[in-house]
């Protein structure tokens, strides 16, 4: 690629110069395909995307950070941190001292931190820098039966336990944030936290790491996922009963819209730094993924799991 360098400015004004142009294929994220036992990229953009070949295989379990900056993978009895996925060339790093095969994981928004959870042991564990030089923290006994999990960039763990939603901050005792039973999903943004309960209640908890204050934001029948828009202005709640995604304006705490879905949602997992979420994973080989794209032209898109010829 031929470099281009153009001097735009003059001595008394700001000048700009363009560095060499680099071109690549766009990725919409990564998914763990349990059937293929591997992590597969979503090649292309919604509307012209498909799930590509496995880039990290032989996995018993995996979880990918939003945007694909990192991943955790369990293979042959060990937990690995993976980086370089965006280049489709993963770099494997064994994570010493990690718990066994996780049952659940959650990521901080920037993907720099992850928490894994072992249901049998009732233990959670922070994994720092999973895409670079991963390091496992001390196992944290949060108790069995966690149904939802979240972690912020500070390493604070929020877990939906049978007795309610608890905050586990480093060096501090666990504190009950809200007595929500059977939390379905938890999302954080800044100092706020949102919880979807199995009964359909959507709670917002302000200053959850300081003086938490909870109140009911909305009620969505059979919620299955929560997500905060990358700009932090909107909250998306996927409801299975209504086959829709409800949109709330977080500034006014009012409903801002509703996206009907052609399929029954099962989750709302961030795929990338863009407002793009996985709504429904593939249930079978011919079953496509369904992704929700927010933004000025929101829409639900299928992503074929197979591959064209």
């Amino acid at each position: 690629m031929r470099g281009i360098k153009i001097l735009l400015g003059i001595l008394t004004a700001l000048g700009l110069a363009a560095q060499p142009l680099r071109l690549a294929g766009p990725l919409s994220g990564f998914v763990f395909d349990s059937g293929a036992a591997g992590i597969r990229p979503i090649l292309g953009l919604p509307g012209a995307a498909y799930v590509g070949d496995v880039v990290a295989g032989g996995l018993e379990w995996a979880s990918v950070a939003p945007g694909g900056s990192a991943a955790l993978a369990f293979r042959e009895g060990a937990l690995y941190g993976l980086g370089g996925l965006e280049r489709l060339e993963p770099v494997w790093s064994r994570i010493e001292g990690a718990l066994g095969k996780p049952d659940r994981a959650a990521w901080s928004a920037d993907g720099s931190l992850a928490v894994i959870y072992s249901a049998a042991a009732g233990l959670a564990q922070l994994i720092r820098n999973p895409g670079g030089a991963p390091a496992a923290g001390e196992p944290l006994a949060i108790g069995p039966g966690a149904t939802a999990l979240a972690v912020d960039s500070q390493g604070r763990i929020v877990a939906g336990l049978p007795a309610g939603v608890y905050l586990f901050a480093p060096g501090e005792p666990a504190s009950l944030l809200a007595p929500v039973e059977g939390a379905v999903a938890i999302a954080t943004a800044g100092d706020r936290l949102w919880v979807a309960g199995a009964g359909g209640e959507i709670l917002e908890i302000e200053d959850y790491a300081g003086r938490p204050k909870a109140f009911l934001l909305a009620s969505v029948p059979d919620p299955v996922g929560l997500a905060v828009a990358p700009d932090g202005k909107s909250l998306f709640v996927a409801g299975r009963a209504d086959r829709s995604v409800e949109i709330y304006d977080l500034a006014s705490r009012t409903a801002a819209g509703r996206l009907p879905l052609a399929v029954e949602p099962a989750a709302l997992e961030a795929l990338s730094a863009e407002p793009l979420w996985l709504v429904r994973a593939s249930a079978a080989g011919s079953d496509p993924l369904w992704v929700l794209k927010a933004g000025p032209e929101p829409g639900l898109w299928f992503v074929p799991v197979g591959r064209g010829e």
Partner: protein
Amino acid sequence: MRQSCLWSVLSALMLSSAALAQTAPPFSLQIQQGANRYTIADGGTITLPADAIGLMSAASVTLTYTGTAASVSINAVEITGHADFTTAGLPDLPASLSPRQSLNFYVRYLPTTSARVLGRVTLNYTEGRITSGVTINLVGVAPEFAFSFIPPGGNAMPLAPGGTVAFPLTALNTTATATFIITNRGSGSGTVNNITGSGAPFQLAGLPLPPVTVEAGKELRFSIQFTPTQLAAAQGVLQIELVDRRPSFRLEGSGSGPVYAYEVILPSGGMALAPGELISMPSAPVGDKSSLTVRVRNAGNADGTISAISVQGAGFSLADLPFLPLTLAPGGAASFTLSFAPTQPGRASARLRIGNDTFEVSGTGLGATLAYAYAIGDATTTVQPGGTLVFTPVAVGRTTAARFLISNTGTAPAVVNSISLGATNIPFGLTDLPALPVTIAAGATVGFTVQFAPTAIGTSTATLKIDTQSFTLSGSGEPPDPLPSYRFIAPSGPQQPMQQIAVGLALEKPYPLTLNGTLTLAFSSEVFSNDPAVQFAAGGRTVTFTIPANTTQAVFAQSATEIRLQTGTVAGLITLTPSFSTEGGINLTPSNPPALSLSVPQSAPRLLSVAISSKTSNALTLLVSGYSTSRSVTQMDFQFTPTTGENLATTKLTLNAEPSFLAWYQSSTSQQYGSLFTATVTFTLQGDVKNVTSLSDAIQSVSVTLTNRLGTSSAVAISLR
């Protein structure tokens, strides 16, 4: 007769010799007996043979004067000898005869005995002066028949007419022969005109053809055969037809031997039975047995021997048999048991043999018997277990049926517990089945319907099971109806890139068969590069569908009536072509199946997003995402808007991107993304700022456009603050 003639000749010779010594009388003697005329000389002899004693024999005598005198006088005629001779027809005497003149008279013989008798007729005459006589000798003969017979093994016995020819006791069905003798003990031959016999067991044998002449002293023999067929005395009559009478004789004989009398003994009593008659056994259920006693008694007059007693016929048997051979004295009896154990329902028959006598035996087995048949239209065909029900050939997709009938032709109710087909997923089916188990009364019929709906061309077979009986179902499938025309329910023609459009498929009219189909997507790129994103939602470029029977709409995976596909980001032609086949695999796809064509045209590039990848005080990196269906971008234009109060020496930057994009679109990596790309553009900043602290803060926003030879994209702006 021969003896009599000889005697006549000798007499004539003697008279002739005497005449030679004397002068012969002047007369000639003409004799006529019946049609026989002859001449005798003086002293000649006339033999008069009578047919029987009491029957006259006569001769005409013509005396002709042969002398030369004027006349001759016949003075007297004398007859001497046996009194059975007489004359008749003489003229009054004396009578004169002129020369050549004749005198006639008769000589008659009426025998009173069969012995030979003699007599003489003398005619005295005077010729001139000479008186002399002419002499005719007479001989009378007559037959006399006597009768006798020789019984079998015996001696001859005389028999008078009306007497009896008695045969000794003769074994039944054997023949005794007696000889009957007719003896002519008279002097002349006699005639037997006919011999007849009557009486069934009596037969005459060795008879000559009548009439029969029996010479004197000779006899006629013939046989009388007696063949008794029963013990009772037999009688007959032998009749002999003679000339003068018809003597008859009684024939008598009696048979001897054993006569068997049979009797069937049942608990209800006994019943006499004649050979050849039917013995009806008591009915018995299949698997059970009925019995009766057969008794044989010698009602004859001689010992009888029974060498064998047997029965032939399925299900029949004998028991309690006496030791064989069995000798039964007159009046003696023996018995045995005849049993019937039917192995199947219905009438069974057998033959029972006792010695030389046979009997028909029959019995009825009580039980159910199922008969099977099937009816197609008006034609009913019987079918045996293991046989085949053959259906009329029918086109795949259509159905034909046969009515299967189960009839109980037995004598007891039958129960059918199960009616089924030997396999599933076969083109045969059962309907109208009776509620099972079903009881079929004797003589009753139940039925159900067997359907044949072929799914493939050719012969199909299956097994129909009715309890333990199996029948083969055989049907022939003929080519199905042609596929109706179909249409796509989808947009066609030019389409926007990056679209996910739905496609449906429907027949113009329902088809009677469930159809399986495949919809195949083909992508023909206009720019020599494939786009792997062009595929169905289900993945890949083929999807299967079904069109249920008697419907029109194609149904894809998860019961969807449409399938979605992506148009991708590369210019080209997307073609969807369906194929159809029956569930049996018969291809119904037209030779040139109509296809759906979608085109993605070449166009100016399109920008999808512009994002800030990184921003430092003196550098700014933008991520520009978009696509170009022609896979070409020649230029990128950036329009910078300065922050208020700041000054940009140049606000527009144009980048000749063609070499970079050319290299990108020619790379194999780019093939995975169609024409999608993400361009990373980094700007370095130089110069002075007035009101902001960093160089990058001097830029308020940037707007980007892309250009190729088909045009320029819309601008996408991003705020940097």
